[in-house]
């Protein structure tokens, strides 16, 4: 309990302070000039900070120059523009922030706007649940360039993510990149002039369908990388248009996609249970489908966490349509291999594989049925095993051992 004496004492002190402050206030008001610029960027960032769940933040048509990365951490917010060619957030002059927009919030929707020329990633969504990204364009407007930001649309460690009708252009890594996530749908979208058009990495249960991947270095990639908290599996890639992915690789060396040969349609690296069907693959000059292990990258170092499974297994390729392709592989070495095996005017077959398989699981040097690569419904498809483990000594063209079927993967059910 406060005694009456103390309360009086406290009051006096309080009043005396008020008295002191009393004569200072006018001086402050007269001379103070706020250091904060109240501009579009500040206004928008304030809106993002002060948003309440359920709020819709509308950004009217216009091109807005931003200097700092934006960020949102309030759950349940929708950011809405007036159209992906009307509301443009331009980060050409960005001086700080590793993203154009960073979201660390659940139940997030962003639609109908563009994020251009971010210095790092355009739209990064980290550790969020229930995310909808639709009719969003991320673009580096100068075209392919190593100095472009890494990722266009980049949800990582998310659950329940829908990417619909987006456009991703010019990323120096992946235009649409879903990492370490669960339950993902990427559909009706277009990825072009990225190193990787669409990349699903260390992710469980992803459906990638009705997309167009064109003029990338590699069209659609499904990767598992070591040393992460989860290894992904179960991706379906279907009804996509994957063609002319022949853009020279412009990634900064060192990253995983830096090793993707130009001319790659679909690349499966160290991932399991991938179903690739009813796609249209055309004019991918190295190969339409490439299957590889992390052993084929230079990342096969002894330091890789021992629990990591580097072998791609249980792949199911069926009912795809192919046109051209494999005629002009990237790098001199692949060109030489192609020339040696198929002649000047010949081409690689639809599928090539680096040949690494798990010796502990192999039966007679081959994948057991449950882990096998199955090719069905496309009688013209052959698989070239380049025999990586033996130093590429005996490349083999095979067909019959892959004529099998797996159970189709179930569709991804989004609970959004």
């Amino acid at each position, binding site marked *: 309990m406060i005694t009456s004496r103390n309360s009086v004492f406290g009051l006096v002190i309080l009043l005396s302070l008020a008295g002191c402050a009393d004569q200072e206030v006018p001086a402050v008001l007269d*001379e103070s000039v706020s250091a904060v610029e109240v501009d579009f960027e500040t206004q928008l960032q304030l809106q993002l900070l002060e948003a309440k769940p359920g709020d819709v933040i509308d950004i009217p048509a216009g091109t807005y120059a931003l200097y700092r990365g934006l960020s949102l951490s309030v759950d349940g917010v929708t950011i809405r523009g007036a159209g992906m060619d009307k509301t443009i957030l331009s980060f050409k002059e960005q001086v700080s922030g590793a993203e154009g927009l960073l979201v660390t919030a659940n139940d997030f929707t962003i639609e109908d706007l563009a994020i251009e020329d971010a210095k790092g990633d355009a739209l990064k969504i980290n550790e969020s649940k229930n995310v909808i990204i639709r009719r969003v364009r991320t673009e580096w407007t100068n075209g392919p360039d190593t100095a472009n930001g890494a990722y266009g649309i980049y949800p990582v460690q998310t659950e329940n993510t829908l990417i619909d009708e987006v456009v991703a252009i010019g990323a120096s890594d992946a235009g649409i990149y879903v990492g370490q996530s669960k339950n993902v749908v990427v559909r009706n979208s277009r990825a072009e002039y990225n190193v990787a058009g669409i990349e699903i990495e260390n992710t469980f249960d992803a459906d990638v369908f009705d997309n167009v991947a064109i003029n990338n270095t590699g069209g659609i990639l499904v990767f598992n990388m070591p040393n992460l908290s989860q290894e992904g599996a179960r991706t379906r890639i279907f009804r996509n248009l994957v063609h002319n992915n022949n853009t020279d690789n412009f990634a900064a060396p060192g990253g995983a996609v830096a090793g993707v040969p130009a001319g790659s349609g679909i690349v499966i690296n160290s991932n399991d249970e991938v179903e690739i069907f009813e796609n249209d693959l055309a004019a991918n000059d190295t190969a339409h489908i490439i299957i590889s292990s992390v052993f084929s990258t230079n990342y096969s170092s002894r330091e890789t966490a021992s629990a990591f499974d580097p072998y791609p297994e249980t792949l199911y390729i069926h009912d795809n349509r192919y046109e051209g392709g494999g005629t002009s592989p990237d790098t001199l070495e692949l060109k030489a291999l192609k020339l040696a095996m198929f002649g000047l005017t010949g081409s690689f077959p639809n599928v090539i594989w680096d040949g690494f398989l798990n010796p502990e699981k192999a039966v007679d040097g081959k994948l057991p049925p449950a882990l096998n690569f199955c090719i069905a419904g496309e009688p013209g498809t052959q698989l070239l095993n380049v025999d990586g483990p033996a130093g590429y000594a005996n490349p083999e063209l095979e067909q019959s051992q892959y004529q099998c079927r797996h159970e189709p993967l179930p569709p991804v059910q989004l609970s959004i």
Partner: protein
Amino acid sequence: MNLMRQFKHTSYRWRSWIQLSERGPHVLYRMMRSIAELPNRTSKAAARAYGSNQLMSRTTALCVLLALSAGCAEPPTLSSQYFAFDNPEKLSRWSVIQVRDQALTLAGDAKVYQLASPLFSDYAGKLRTLSLPKGAQVSLDADTERFVYPIGTIMTKTFYYRRASGSQRSEFRLVKANQGSELGLNDFSLAEVTLLETRVLVKRAGGWTALPYVWDADQQDATLSPAGALIRASLQSEGESEGEGPSEEAQAFAYLVPNQNQCAGCHVLDQATKAILPIGPHPRHLATGVEAGDQLAAWAAFGALSDGVLQEAVGLGANVDWRDAKRPLYLRARSYLDINCGHCHSPTGPADTSGMFLTATSQDPIRWGVCKAPIAAGQGTGGAQFGIVPGNPDASILSYRLGSVDPGAMMPELGRSLVHSEGLALIRSWITEMSGQCNAAQQPVVHSDDHNPRLLDQNPAFTLASGLD
């Protein structure tokens, strides 16, 4: 009344107090009169003449007098003001740190503290304070090895630079703070020092809140700025030509005051809880060494830590001062990485997406990046293949990103727009001394000293593409 008149003459504030008090309750008016008559009543005889009631009044009045003579005629001894809900528009309302009579003044209960190894912030000097609720103590979470502060705790960190001599504040021509020598409170001549921002961390019933305040142009107070600010400035070293105009050596840079989300971007140490926590004031950062006078002991001395908590905290070990060349290089490097990177790069932090953990307690070299492939570094690899290539900082992503000022490649992502040359040199030395080699099929790509990657003609990473060598 002599004393009264004297005060009236010497202090405008005193007069305002009088006026205010006269408008106040009757009891205050009576006390005012008591104070005014004090010179006649300070003798022992006079004191004896008073009854107990009067004695109490006199004591109160003396306290008031003390408070006022300390408070208005000179800077007062203030107490930090805790706001349980409101976010005051002006920094001064917290009473922790404010400008009085052109001097930076701290509340009497605000304790200045330092860290063994501070975070690099574009060579800004920092003044850190801790204000605990009266009588409250700090406890320790044994699992996280972090301090748990009581509700009502207020921490502030004020970022400042010395101004280039002869320059106006509005020019933002700033001088690098000497490493390790932060200004004492008495050194803050506001005519020479530019205060940029003060960040307030307050522990409320619902957890910590981070509030960025940007100092007003007149430097009398700072204004709450949730959206942060960008301040274009130039920086030069101590002793460089500080004459008229920007010196040739001065580096232009954009000083970033983080917005509230960006505060959380570093201060959310666990992505699962998304709770904001202080980064620095925890045992291993505060234990600044036995020789130099231990920070933790100082905290115990003013009552913030019980003896038990002090013992426990000391037992958790201490980060070394990375600037202390007498300490082993690897300890200095790990300490530097811990405070600059560990808040994100931990198994619970936002940068767990990278698989790199740079906290002081992270023991597995691959988690520091040794021979570890990047995950989503993009152009941040600088062309290198591994986080750290032992013996070869030029081929290590870690040193590349510390040396970059490209927002898309630099690390940390926020909090600096300049390269910390001394910190970079430390990390490069650490990598240089590291033994071992990575099992790469080809020579690692080398990035050059000007931080631009020297690209190889062919991509080195994918042997499928070059397997017929």
